[in-house]
């Protein structure tokens, strides 16, 4: 098995583009999804500030966004992507649909992490005269941090999977390479190599995330 140095270069670029997309999209996804998740957790029925109507509105929006298959979303928002980035292909452009797909997913993850926080601890903070904002920052986010970090790891894995799908419309990165060579040119070898690299990337992200979570968790030591 001899591999052309040009192919190696291409694969390295693919890894770089994929990581770029995943990191930026996950970060942007959290910029939208973290406030969304906090809002859902706080305004929900058992939240610290129940607001049934508000909750319902964001609950429905989140569900709608989450139920659009990523491949459809990718195509559906091409005009928006063009408007924001100026083109509809390549890694920079793919960040737009990735972020939009990740945000509601992340919102739900954050909501469920915050809901796991012991109600007794929240009550204790309320008994100290904490404001809702203080409870969110000092109690909810602080106590849920391990669960939130696990959420980040899962989100990155999901975004990585989505990013590969964007290869179909020339989204750049490893998925793009796999589809171009494996599907259009019947070059199975390169396709398999890219898949192996994708699997390895997920494993590495997962491993780092879990080790970090275990290291930071103060509950059992």
């Amino acid at each position, binding site marked *: 098995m001899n591999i052309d140095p040009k192919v190696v270069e291409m694969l390295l670029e693919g890894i770089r583009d994929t990581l770029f997309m995943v990191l930026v999209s996950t970060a942007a996804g959290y910029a939208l999804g973290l406030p969304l998740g906090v809002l859902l957790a706080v305004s929900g029925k058992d939240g610290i500030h129940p607001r049934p109507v508000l909750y319902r509105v964001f609950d429905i929006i989140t569900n709608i966004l989450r139920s659009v298959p990523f491949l459809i979303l990718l195509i559906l928002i091409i005009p928006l992507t063009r408007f924001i980035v100026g083109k509809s292909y390549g890694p920079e452009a793919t960040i737009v649909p990735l972020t939009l797909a990740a945000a509601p997913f992340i919102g739900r993850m954050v909501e469920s992490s915050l809901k796991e926080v012991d109600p007794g601890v929240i009550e204790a903070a309320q008994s100290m005269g904490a404001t809702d904002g203080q409870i969110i920052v000092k109690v909810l986010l602080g106590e849920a941090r391990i669960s939130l970090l696990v959420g980040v790891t899962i989100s990155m894995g999901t975004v990585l999977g989505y990013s590969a799908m964007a290869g179909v419309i020339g989204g750049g990165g490893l998925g793009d390479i796999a589809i171009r060579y494996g599907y259009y040119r019947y070059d199975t070898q390169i396709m398999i190599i890219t898949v192996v690299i994708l699997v390895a990337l997920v494993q590495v992200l997962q491993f780092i995330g879990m080790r970090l979570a275990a290291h930071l968790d*103060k509950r059992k030591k």
Partner: protein
Amino acid sequence: MAFLRAEHLCKEFVSDDGKISALSDISFEVEKGEIFGIIGLSGAGKSTLVRCINRLEEPTSGCVYIKDRNINELSDKQLRTERRRIGMIFQHFNLLMQRSVLDNVALPLEIAGVRKKEAREKARGYLDAVGIPDKASAFPSQLSGGQKQRVAIARVLASDPELLLCDEATSALDPQTTRQILSLLRDINKKYGITIIIITHAMTVVQEICDRVAVLEGGRLMEMNTVKELFAHPQTKAAKRLLLIQDNNEEEAVL
């Protein structure tokens, strides 16, 4: 004038089966510096009652006065300020598991707007006061139940309260640790002049520490007296029942 007055407190919960009355027409007074017990079996409404005092639970009707200030008329902002002077400790301690012991004690200070460094310095002093200065950098999961409740008490002291509410604060502890925690509560009552209201289902707790006690059953206040009188001459069936349960428990303990 009494330090704390509860007047005609009523609390109803609305459920699918209709209204459930958790508290009916509860009135009592607590004097400054007193240790006042509220005893009853589970479901008697004790926890609801104690939560009506700092409005973690809003009474359906009636009100609570602390130093002649009607708690139920306070705005949200005023209530938060008032709550800083009303400490509360819990059966399951309710410490922040991801914060060190020192940072747990510093939390009420941070909430009150004290800067983190200064809050930590002050917190150290309160850990001394509850007898665990060596645990400052430990995390709650590394502590025993008794130590956790000491941290919770230090956390309460940090906000310099006038009133301390104890919600089954010793129910998760063994008898020996219970005695130690009760004696710590008595110390802070004397040393800082903090008025204490203790919710419990255990007569031993009342006997050990309280000046006066109110007996709660089915959301009603059945009897209220000094501890001595109540033990010597219980007037109601509810009080007699609670005393009887205690005797049985002691017999079992001996056996």
